[in-house]
């Protein structure tokens, strides 16, 4: 999924670049730690963008109507 080798992921965990928790012999990586790899955004910015996307269609609709009349 991350297109990284297993060794690279272990190195990133040991350097603290990916936050993970070892449970038994297995590392568990929370989704928030790999958001950048998935979305190109840090987790907080991804969440902030989603907040705006919830309302943007209403804004775009009003703006499109307004621009057509300028």
């Amino acid at each position: 999924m991350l297109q990284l080798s297993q060794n690279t992921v272990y190195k990133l965990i040991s350097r603290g670049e990916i936050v993970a928790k070892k449970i038994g012999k297995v590392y568990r990586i929370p989704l928030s730690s790999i958001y950048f790899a998935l979305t190109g955004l840090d987790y907080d910015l991804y969440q902030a963008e989603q907040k705006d996307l919830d309302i943007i269609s209403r804004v775009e609709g009003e703006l499109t109507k307004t621009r057509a009349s300028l």
Partner: protein
Amino acid sequence: MKADLRVFVDSDVVISSLISSSGAAFLLLNQSKRHKLLVSNISVKEMRIVVLRMRLGISKLDELLEERLIIIKLKQKAVEFRKTYGNYVTDVNDAHIVAGAVIAKAKFLITYNVRHYKTEKIRSKLEIVILTPAKYLQYLRSL
């Protein structure tokens, strides 16, 4: 860092920041001071209409315009920019935004309406990068 990045902000971003105080548009307009945020007088006109229609409070918009945004005066009307900048957008009614960014000498155009702009053509011919607020804030973190 000096506030020397010139960033033109589309009206949808400004209006979104008035609706949600936890969105990326709000963060862009209210937290970061690493740039000059620009809008045009035509943008202000359309924002006022939309804010009134959506009953968002014109005083909140005025406060934002006064404290956070620099207004660039465009001498032509919105329709007059269609001929020059209409081929940079998929909806000619958005042409005045591209015109505003060019006249303001902006390096970035921040919008949620990315699909209405011909981003590659704008980047190569006008040297303006189009990004969403969150992508731009992510870029600032990389500096």
